[in-house]
């Protein structure tokens, strides 16, 4: 860490120099902080206020203070409860799948020595593509008459008639989960791969000499070593999946029958279709609190395992 006061600066009066030195970091910070305040910090606080008011968007009237009425109505409404369920369902179906697949692929890719950039490049593509495009792509793939997936399943004989994927609640959820896993698994693979490469090889050799087989080596060495990475992955993946709007919106718009109406879409609907901004803000607050709690849990795990690592 630098201590500024020891660095001589020529040609300034002593008192002016101190003031200038003291202010300099703030000059550097101001533009970024100004933008952050306007775009993020102020809105977050404002959201809290809006959530306890009945906000009049268009009639030009005063906002009414309604206390926790918005929250109560939300938590009591079956639509919102369904929305929370949809979010949980979406995230906690996608996450394990993406993790398992990602782990498997990381293990496979770990064996590849040459031309690794090519493989990494392939992995990065699903991630580079805009969620909108991913949404349209998978919507087309799951199309009941013209989609590739039905065609494949029919040809192979797994199904006998086209499945209207996006028109039935359960299959629509499945379709969005598949698209989501496709999109996130590369990130998970890359992270886990980096983690795998950080595991010292002698651990494996020692285990091999002790007679451990592949599975035992995996569960007793690989997984524990990867705990830190996995916690980070879990954290970010959960945050990104719970927050996701574009992918689901394009694929199903929250349907059918609100089966994929995840909380971000509900927030949007409340605010911009039903024009109930107060209630939308309340829904957003609930989402925020949930995410902060999840983050808090994982951050503790991450930091504790970090401390453990440095101690080892």
């Amino acid at each position: 860490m630098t201590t500024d006061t020891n660095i001589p600066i020529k040609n300034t009066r002593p008192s002016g120099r101190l003031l200038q030195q003291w202010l300099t970091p703030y000059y550097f910070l101001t533009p970024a902080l100004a933008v952050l305040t306007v775009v993020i910090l102020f809105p977050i606080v404002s959201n809290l206020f809006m959530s306890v008011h009945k906000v009049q968007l268009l009639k030009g009237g005063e906002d009414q203070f309604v206390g926790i009425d918005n929250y109560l109505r939300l938590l009591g409404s079956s639509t919102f409860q369904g929305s929370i369920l949809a979010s949980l369902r979406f995230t906690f179906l996608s996450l394990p799948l993406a993790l398992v697949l990602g782990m498997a692929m990381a293990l496979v890719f770990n064996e590849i020595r040459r031309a690794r950039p090519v493989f990494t490049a392939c992995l990065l593509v699903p991630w580079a593509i805009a969620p909108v495009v991913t949404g349209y792509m998978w919507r087309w793939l799951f199309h009941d008459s013209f989609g590739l997936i039905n065609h494949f399943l029919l040809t192979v004989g797994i199904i006998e008639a086209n499945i209207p994927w996006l028109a039935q609640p359960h299959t629509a959820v499945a379709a969005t989960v598949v698209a989501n896993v496709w999109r996130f698994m590369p990130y998970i693979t890359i992270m886990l791969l980096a983690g795998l490469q950080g595991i010292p090889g002698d651990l494996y050799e020692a285990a091999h000499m002790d007679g451990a087989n592949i599975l035992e080596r995996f569960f007793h060495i690989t997984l524990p070593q990867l705990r830190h990475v996995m916690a980070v992955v879990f954290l970010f993946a959960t945050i990104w999946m719970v927050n996701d709007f574009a992918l689901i919106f394009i694929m199903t718009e929250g349907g059918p029958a609100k089966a994929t109406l995840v909380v971000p879409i509900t927030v949007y609907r409340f605010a911009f279709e039903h024009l109930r901004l107060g209630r939308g803000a309340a829904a957003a607050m609930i989402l925020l609190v949930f995410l902060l709690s999840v983050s808090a849990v994982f951050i503790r795990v991450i930091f504790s395992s970090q401390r453990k690592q440095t101690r080892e």
Partner: protein
Amino acid sequence: MKQHTQKQIRAAIGYGVGGTFCFLLLLPLIWVASTSLRPISEMTQVPPVVLPQSITFNAYLQLWEAAPFVKYFFNSLIISASTAVLALGFAICAAYAFARFRFKGATALLMVVVMSQMLPGSSILIPLFQVIRNIGLLDTHVGMVLIYTGFAIPFCTWLLNGYFRAIPEELEHAAMIDGCNRFDLLWRIILPLAAPAIVAVGTFAFLMSWNEFLFAYVFTKSNALTIPVGLRAAFLGQYVNKYDQLFAASLIFSLPPIAIFISLQRFFVQGLTAGAVKE
């Protein structure tokens, strides 16, 4: 001996499975590309065929005429580029402050900056809408650049902060004795040294704006509409549906991100995994 063949087998499996997996991963894209290259009559035929039977580039030619698509493209370009420049500028300054100065509230502010990137978009969507609306920046390029800059700054600052701290200070000490002020230091010494990180961070900001949907959807209506929103409007509009053009446009739209990700993959992987994996 046994270990060697084991290694060979494992490598073979690695390449084989890995290769197949990559192919399957990219199959949806291939399907989309194929759809964009075939005439509509072939697209809606049943059963669908993966590779096009007759290739036509019609979609790629016609999509530019789909009334406002050109406008959307330029909007995306202008907004994303401006965001990259602005976010980069502000983040460099802020990161420099965090990296080189010890001042009151430094840790707290840094935490605030870093935590900002974890906040869900939906929790700022509504109040931000009110703010932008009241300032009169709804559906304007300025408004979108402002919003996206705000989104990009936390991550950019955090990454650059880490990078700047790794640069030894002796160079700056020497320059300061020679009479450089802080800004000169930043410009002449730090920036050239941190060039790779700056490039990576700038492209991140660019891509984040390029791909963003929700805020573009809510905050733009016709003037500042970007491509993600425009895909809906231009090709699947009220009485229009042109799947081939939709996918052609999607592919064109995806080229910059794919190209950037692939050419800068080392940085991205490094940036992602830094701090998560013990070195």
